[in-house]
């Protein structure tokens, strides 16, 4: 560590090619598509902010989740739980500042005003983009090299190893050097849950809500236990994905946002230098 140039190269770490072109294009397409799907979906939910289980469900039937208002108080009800959410859910301000009775506020929806027709056009158009890019990514992953990045390596799926990884994450102790180029086991399991459960669940429950596809693909109704159950699960999966995005962004920030975002843009990742013992 006496040579100054060697030291600077050492501090910056080695560059490795971490993300393929396909993965990067899919990632950023999905970022945009997910934002449109979520925000237009919240607007659609605003048209009937109640969720049910079973084949049918409408205003006279009991809802397991409801966002509503009474006497200018906004509330979120889940089962017997009632939370006052005035200002955000149920009762909030429009873009012009007027108080309004609306489940999700203007800043969370596409369009910002109450417009079910327009929200459906956004949602059902970008559903094509989401489904086709997701299908392409899954096919490429299953049959390509990316599968090896995502599947747990030998010994990684052991409870002991997973527990160790949980402890390391809790202490914000992230892998350095060569190991940082690979996904760790918690990352692999999370990504697998997202691409194999949450996204396919999102798409299939979405298809189940189409009356015409119910006729063509009646097994979907049995798979999810009815159209209203599918609608509820659609909502639950959506917030599962929101939870994933929040954790994903926190981890990017903790792991070094510039290096992480750059690697998803250019493919090249700079390995964090091994700590000097």
């Amino acid at each position: 560590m006496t040579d100054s140039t060697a030291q600077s190269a050492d501090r910056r770490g080695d560059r490795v090619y971490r993300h393929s072109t396909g993965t990067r294009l899919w990632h950023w397409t999905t970022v945009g598509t997910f934002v449109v799907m979520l925000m237009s979906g919240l607007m659609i939910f605003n048209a009937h902010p109640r969720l049910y289980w079973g084949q049918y469900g409408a205003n006279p039937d009991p809802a397991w989740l409801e966002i509503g208002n009474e006497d200018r108080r906004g509330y979120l009800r889940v089962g017997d739980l009632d939370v006052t959410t005035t200002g955000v859910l149920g009762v909030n301000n429009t873009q012009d500042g007027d108080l309004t009775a609306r489940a999700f506020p203007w800043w969370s929806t596409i369009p910002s005003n109450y417009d079910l027709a327009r929200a459906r056009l956004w949602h059902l158009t970008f559903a094509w983009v989401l489904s086709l890019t997701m299908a392409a990514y899954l096919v490429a992953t299953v049959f390509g090299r990316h599968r090896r990045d995502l599947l747990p390596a030998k010994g990684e799926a052991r409870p002991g190893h997973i527990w160790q990884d949980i402890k390391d994450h809790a202490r914000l102790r992230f892998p350095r050097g060569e190991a940082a180029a690979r996904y760790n086991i918690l990352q692999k399991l999370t990504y697998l849950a997202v691409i194999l459960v949450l996204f396919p669940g999102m798409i299939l429950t979405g298809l189940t809500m189409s009356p015409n596809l119910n006729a063509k693909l009646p097994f979907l109704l049995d798979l999810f236990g009815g159209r209203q159950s599918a609608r509820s699960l659609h909502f639950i999966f959506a917030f599962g994905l929101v939870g994933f995005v929040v954790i994903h962004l926190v981890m990017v920030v903790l792991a070094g946002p510039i290096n992480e975002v750059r690697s998803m843009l250019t493919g090249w990742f700079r390995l964090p230098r091994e700590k000097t013992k």
Partner: protein
Amino acid sequence: MNRLITRRRLITGLGYTVIAGTAGGLAVSPAFRDLVLKGGETLSYNTHRLVGRDALVREYSEAEMSPDFRTNGSTAGSTDEWLAGRENGFAHWQLGVTGLVAQPAQFSLDALRSMPSRTQITRHDCVEGWSAIGKWTGVPLAEVLDRVQPQPNANYVVFRCADRMGLSLYYESIDMVDAYHPQTILAYGMNDQDLPVGHGAPIRLRVERQLGYKNAKYIMQIELVESLAGIAGGKGGYWEDRGYEWYAGI
């Protein structure tokens, strides 16, 4: 530093250009936005017509019916003709079937009831998101069409209704695939009784593979047309004229 334009860099660059261009276009250009969103609707309709044109929707058992089937939209007709009809149980009500047909005809309620009937317990899905299951009895639209003989250039069946939303009379339209679908009926009965006023008396359309707003109530007249362009707002229905999709199978 390697400054060569490799194939990988070219693909990546093009891909990012497409993503950024699409996002930018959607954000700043209303015309581009409408083009993309209209394209999505057309893609969905054509795909749905490509797969399962004849598939039947699930029919439920009596035990699976909604205990309380809510009404929606208008809950009564408002034209003089409809109001007069309600006074006497629609005894003099006549359904006119006109337009591109070889044999224009009028059908009284009794005439429709005497034709072959179909009873089905199906799910009604509102565009807002709720669903209700009810039992509908009526005459298949195909039976009515067989009696008037549509001409080859008839592409749509238009339903003109007696209820007003604001100042406009409600109307709807479907294509010939849905018109001849076995579960597409003109319902005069609901849950083993005469069709209640709130649900569209004397007859309403049940087009089971599409959302609630396609299922026009208070039908007074049926017209077969080649194009929807000249009718009201030109989009094929009251809600369609206000931005909703004409194809509501999703």
